[in-house]
């Protein structure tokens, strides 16, 4: 492993999030979390749907579980893990974590943890419609 940038990697560009319904995912992440659509392209074999936080380069690929890369049994296992809350999550930052929290509660989003002061700042947790965990934090000034 090197740390001298000899691999020429410059950024985290796209990260995949497993979703069970792309329209519902798009509505959740754009309506409630303020993401913008980057790409929404019907490739025939898949819908390439990416979103991101305005002003920030990294995109999320809202990737439908299933498709030819998984056999039916594997796809079912992944869906099982998503709905049990067993897969990874997203970590977002807010410049007003309490306002973000209030808006999400008003919108009826599932809360996993109310805002709590932590050594590194204040954070809370929510679930997306499928069971993916999303954390929102505001670092200490």
């Amino acid at each position, binding site marked *: 492993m090197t740390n001298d940038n000899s691999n020429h990697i410059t950024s985290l560009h796209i990260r995949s999030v497993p979703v069970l319904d792309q329209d519902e995912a798009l509505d959740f992440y754009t309506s409630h979390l303020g993401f913008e659509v980057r790409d929404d392209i019907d490739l025939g074999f898949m819908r390439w749907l990416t979103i991101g936080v305005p002003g920030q380069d990294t995109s999320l690929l809202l990737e439908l579980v299933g498709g030819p890369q998984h056999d039916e049994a594997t796809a079912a296992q992944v869906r099982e893990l998503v*709905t049990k809350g067993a897969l990874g999550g997203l970590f977002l930052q807010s410049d007003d974590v309490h306002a973000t929290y209030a808006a999400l509660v008003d919108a009826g989003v599932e809360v996993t943890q109310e805002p709590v002061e932590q050594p590194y700042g204040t954070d809370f947790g929510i*679930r997306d419609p499928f069971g993916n965990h999303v*954390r929102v934090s505001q670092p200490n000034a």
Partner: protein
Amino acid sequence: MALTPQEDVNRRMLRARDEMDRRYAEPLDLPTLARIAHLSASQFGRVFKEVYGETPHRYLQRRRVERAMTLLRQTDRPVTDIAWDVGFASLGTFSRTFSTVVGCSPSEFRTRHEPVHVPSCFIAAWTRPREGAPRTAVSEKRPDPSPA
């Protein structure tokens, strides 16, 4: 979104488990959890164990002990206060349960562990004592004096 019956059960049980995570310091309220999961109280415990591999009571105990471990590591609050904070009604039950689950007393744990600064959900997920480690929690043998 079309879910299979099992995925729908998973999703409802996840909502109930999240409620336990939020209210870990409160007594285990099986009727409320069952309502969240759209099940009867008698069904809830069985289905929870089918989905998550342990009883709701056991999950809550691990959650409380994990939270106590965090507070012991991150704060200098008295052990008695931490016991109360995480939902134990007596220091004795807390100390017995903690020692049985973690393998050392709360005070010993505190002296051995420094504060860590990573998102709390990772601390919660990765420091939660595993089921059965190191052996069955005292709290399952001796009812927690906090209302169940």
